[in-house]
């Protein structure tokens, strides 16, 4: 089994399987995370409560922040695996067409499908900055440990930060749109019967995500959330 | 014999390019050269008994024998794979970049087999009977019977390989009636039967290549056969990428190189189809049989202009619902929809009330030609007749027609930009298949020991006319079920690996080939190879096409000889011999077509009867139907080569019919 798993990984299809499975985890996280973020509309106490809850969750089985760290570890592992495969696959593709076309047109491919690599890189950059903004607070005008509500609102009041977030959210949205569908194809779940369903689902998911996530910076800018 | 011909036909009217010839051919005295070795006895036991009487090669020894297979079409691929499975070393050659692209891939309609899955009265004997009769009694009974017998194994074999034949909802195989057959014995895979059968044979071949039993040589053209001590010992080839001339030794050589329809330049064959392999074998001593038996298919898309490079066939099935007509009067320039019913001539329905539009290929083609010669043809150049679906659409509705012929209609529209649902299709006959080929005995061995010929390349089991869906059957019968036995029978009698490629005989042939190449390249004349091929094709089509006459054929022979001379003096071939050089490849092929064309005309000239695809205007019934002359021509005409431009020698294999008694075909 281990041997065969290794042989699976050696092939590009194996790497794709890893991207897909880690992709699932990442998607689930992002959905949950954005859902959590929407508590911000219920005011600081609820939102901070939620942030606190993230740390004590799992008690009494887990000590303070223990479960959170486990989740963090899993997430980190997934992102690393996901990126590693992405990079390896990208290198393989580059190598397989040494001479490019003088003229090249893409008759069908969706924009999303052709920007997975760019989109991914933007997301990577975003995550790093994002953690420095709101988790470590190293990149923040007035970071207050434990006061997530303040951290977010204070941050988004800076228009250029909000702008950056909105762009990043769009990138994630596109990535999700192709990714979610592509994932099912990679795992061999997609077929001509469920094709429209999956494409539709992917579209809804990414649109809802973009609306929900960008609403936060916009709400702060427009003063709906103070 | 020459005088004999003069007597039978008027002297030729003087034509400029025609040097008067006194002799067109010599008649051979001894017929010993043509030993058919067909078994005697009850016809249904003959193949069984022959198989049993054959010598076998010890399994341990098989590896030591090398068989050269030229061709990877249905015949070549199936033979190469089957022989390799038996344990022989096989070297397989094709000119395309992959064996999967052989022209068998283009066959559309289907493949016959006497399975009688329809319970409509089909049987081995009926398929045998239909084939002999359809061939206008110019084929060998023993061979045709064997063909019908193994036809059923072919379908089993192909299904086992995963060939996706059409199925019914119950999961059983579907059949259809094809080419006017009275029973439904045709198996098909949409309009791509040949493709699916070839991919089946190709997969079997690929398996053997993967296992290392077959060495495949794509992009390698056979340019000559090497005969040493009276037997075929190997071939000389040109690597079409590097230009390297090389030798390949074989204890036996199989030619499965397809038909020579491209001698007409415009045909339904692929651009690369050629006679070179067969012709070189002929020049090395193999007799060439019935070269004038060529088949013309009535439903092809007409020529649009001189730029035309090939003709596209449309399945015969179209004639089931389409009605064929031309304007009643010559020179009627109105659009078809403006020509009222009473000013149209549905000439097939008029002349053949009982068969109507479904008369056999040769009859349908000839009648189309006649009306066009009368100036009633339609479309560019007046070379076409209408195939009209208006009534069928009225009767069955557009949907049904779309279901039946949708893909064909699309293909037609893609090429002509006309919509067959609205305006009638225009069709015209085109060269489609060549019944003639290298003469072979019952075991498919040519007159050169150790040289076997299979598929369309041999003179085949189709006599003077091939029935639809029977060529695929024959190619696979030869390769899967006949050659594996008969080649073994030959090899059992020879010592393996007696000759090496450095043998002087091989070197000599290699030098001949190199010199020929140099000569082509050195000519540096003012005409392209294609222009010569086009002109040759027009000559052969005009004089040795759908209808032939004594005078016309004699004129053609003179003109072809003259054009051949100009070709060698005035052809321009760019580039060198040491590279991929498509002009050079063409030149070699056209050069051989020139010599073949002369032999075709000579054969057509000698056969003063009409039969099957060969129509001599001098020999027709009062109603203008083909009139056979069994008294003088119930035989196979096999030709011996006597040098370029020299009259060839005619050998005859008499044909006897014990089971199917010759009768005049009538479709009135």
């Amino acid at each position: 089994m281990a041997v065969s798993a290794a042989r699976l990984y050696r092939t590009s299809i194996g790497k794709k399987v890893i991207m897909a499975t880690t992709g699932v985890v990442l998607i689930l996280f992002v959905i949950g995370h954005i859902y959590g973020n929407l508590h911000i509309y219920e005011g600081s106490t609820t939102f901070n409560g939620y942030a606190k809850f993230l740390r004590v969750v799992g008690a009494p089985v887990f000590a303070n922040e223990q479960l959170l760290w486990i989740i963090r570890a899993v997430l980190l592992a997934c992102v690393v695996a996901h990126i590693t495969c992405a990079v390896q696959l990208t290198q393989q593709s580059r190598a397989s067409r040494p001479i490019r076309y003088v003229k090249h047109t893409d008759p069908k491919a969706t924009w999303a499908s052709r920007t997975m690599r760019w989109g991914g890189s933007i997301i990577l950059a975003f995550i790093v900055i994002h953690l420095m903004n709101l988790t470590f607070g190293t990149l923040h005008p007035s970071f207050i440990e434990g006061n997530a509500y303040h951290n977010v609102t204070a941050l988004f009041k800076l228009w250029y930060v909000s702008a950056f977030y909105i762009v990043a959210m769009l990138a994630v949205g596109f990535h999700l749109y192709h990714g979610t569908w592509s994932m099912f194809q990679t795992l061999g779940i997609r077929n001509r019967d469920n094709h429209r369903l999956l494409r539709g689902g992917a579209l809804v998911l990414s649109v809802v995500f973009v609306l929900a996530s960008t609403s936060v910076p916009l709400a702060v800018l427009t003063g709906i959330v103070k | 014999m020459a005088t004999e011909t003069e007597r039978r036909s008027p002297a030729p009217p003087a034509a400029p390019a025609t040097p008067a010839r006194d002799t067109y051919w010599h008649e051979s005295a001894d017929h010993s050269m043509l030993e058919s070795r067909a078994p005697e006895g009850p016809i249904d036991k003959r193949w069984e008994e022959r198989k049993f009487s054959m010598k076998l090669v010890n399994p341990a020894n098989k590896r030591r024998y090398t068989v050269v297979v030229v061709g990877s079409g249905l015949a070549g691929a199936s033979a190469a794979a089957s022989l390799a499975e038996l344990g022989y070393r096989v070297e397989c050659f094709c000119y395309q970049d992959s064996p999967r692209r052989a022209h068998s891939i283009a066959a559309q309609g289907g493949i016959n087999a006497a399975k009688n899955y329809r319970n409509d009265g089909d049987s081995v004997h009926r398929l045998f009977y239909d084939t002999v009769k359809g061939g206008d009694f110019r084929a060998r009974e023993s061979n045709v019977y064997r063909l019908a017998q193994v036809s059923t194994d072919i379908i089993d074999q192909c299904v086992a390989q995963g060939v996706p034949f059409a199925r019914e909802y119950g999961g059983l195989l579907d059949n259809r009636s094809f080419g006017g057959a009275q029973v439904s014995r045709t198996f098909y895979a949409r309009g791509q039967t040949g493709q699916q059968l070839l991919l089946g044979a190709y997969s079997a071949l690929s398996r053997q290549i993967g296992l290392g039993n077959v060495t495949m040589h794509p992009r390698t053209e056979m340019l000559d056969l090497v005969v040493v001590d009276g037997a075929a010992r190997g071939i000389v080839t040109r690597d079409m990428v590097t230009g390297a001339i090389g030798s390949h030794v074989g204890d036996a050589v199989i030619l499965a190189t397809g038909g020579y329809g491209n001698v007409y330049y415009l045909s339904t064959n692929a651009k690369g189809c050629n006679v070179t392999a067969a012709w070189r074998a002929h020049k090395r001593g193999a007799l060439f049989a019935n070269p004038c038996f060529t088949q013309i298919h009535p439903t092809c898309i007409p020529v649009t202009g001189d730029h035309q490079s090939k003709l596209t066939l449309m399945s015969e099935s179209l004639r089931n619902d389409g009605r064929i007509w031309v304007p009643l009067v010559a020179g009627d320039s109105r659009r078809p929809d403006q020509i009222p019913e009473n000013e149209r001539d549905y000439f097939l329905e008029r002349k053949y009330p009982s068969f109507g539009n479904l008369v056999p290929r040769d009859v349908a083609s000839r009648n189309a030609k006649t009306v066009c010669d009368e100036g009633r043809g339609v479309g560019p150049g007046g070379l076409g007749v209408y195939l009209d679906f208006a009534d069928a659409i009225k009767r069955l509705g557009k949907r049904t027609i779309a279901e039946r012929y949708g893909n064909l209609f699309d293909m037609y529209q893609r090429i002509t930009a006309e919509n067959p649902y609205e305006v009638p299709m225009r069709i015209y006959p085109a060269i489609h298949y060549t019944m003639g080929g290298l003469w072979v005995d019952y075991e498919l061995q040519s007159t050169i020991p150790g040289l076997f010929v299979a598929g369309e390349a041999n003179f085949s089991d189709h006599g003077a006319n091939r029935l639809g869906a029977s060529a695929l059957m024959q190619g696979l019968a030869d390769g899967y079920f006949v050659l594996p036995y008969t080649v073994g029978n030959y090899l059992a009698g020879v010592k393996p690996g007696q000759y090496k490629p450095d043998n002087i005989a091989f070197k000599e042939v290699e030098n001949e080939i190199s010199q020929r190449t140099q000569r082509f390249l050195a000519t540096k004349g003012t005409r392209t190879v294609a222009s010569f091929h086009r002109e040759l094709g027009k000559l052969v089509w005009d004089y040795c096409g759908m209808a032939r006459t004594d005078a016309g054929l004699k004129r053609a022979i003179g003109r072809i000889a003259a054009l051949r001379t100009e070709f060698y003096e005035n052809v321009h071939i760019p580039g060198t011999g040491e590279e991929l050089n498509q002009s050079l490849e063409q030149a070699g092929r056209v050069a051989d077509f020139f010599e073949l064309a002369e032999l075709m005309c000579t054969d057509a000239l000698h056969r003063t009867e009409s039969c099957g695809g060969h129509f001599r205007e001098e020999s027709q019934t009062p109603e203008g139907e083909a009139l056979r002359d069994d008294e003088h021509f119930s035989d196979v005409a096999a030709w011996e080569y006597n040098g370029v431009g020299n009259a060839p020698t005619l050998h005859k294999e008499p044909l006897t019919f014990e089971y199917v008694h010759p009768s005049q075909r009538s479709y009135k």
Partner: protein
Amino acid sequence: MAVMARPGANVAPNSHIPPTMHLTLHVWRQHDAASPGKMVQYTTDDASPDMSFLEMLDVVNEELTLRGEEPIAFEHDCREGICGSCGLMINGTAHGPEAATTTCQLHMRSFKDGDEIYIEPWRSKAFPVIKDLVVDRSSFDRIIQSGGYISAPTGGAVDANAMLVAKPDADFAFEAAACIGCGACVAQCPNASAMLFTAAKVAHLAVLPQGQPERYARVGQMVERMESEGFGNCTNIGECSAVCPKGIALDVIGLLNRDFRKARLVNNDGGDGM
């Protein structure tokens, strides 16, 4: 006397003289695999809308030959869309602008008088250029040789109707089997991946009862071979299917992905060349 009329000869009343087109071509010229190539510009005034694209190139080649230049080498054979020999990158699209059409079936009426046309060979590490527009696609053959078949030696077959195949399966198998091996999928794929070609063969044999015994070994060997030939990976972009002259659907790729995963993780047989 039996002389056939031909265009030019007794031209019929309702014939038409096709209009001619002026074209500017940019064509990749490369003498052989070793030497470098470049785009070269040609013009012609003798094209007509009735010509096929390859017939237009024939005309250009005749002109070049008579001028003493080397004609443009391109692959072709059947010229009716079934052998898979032809294949050109025309203005950046494999097989040109028309859907479900091979290069040889493409007609000049798809272009306008005065058009500029870029003609390039298939580009892929696994399809090295041999000359001008001719590439070496033998990697496709090696993929099939690695296992793209059902092992059924001649003679051993049971009666064809002994094995039932449900019509939908037979139809699906046929649609996948319709692949002509032209390589357009690889040429168009931004990753130069051969997934559509390989998956088409895998799918054809995987849905048939005859194909079951070797099903997982087959997909294992074919994928390993595909990888080693230097094709790119598939990121489910879908351009291959869009340019495929036989409209092979992306479904086959999903099927390959599933079967390959099973071959490795569940039904772990076959693999590197058994």
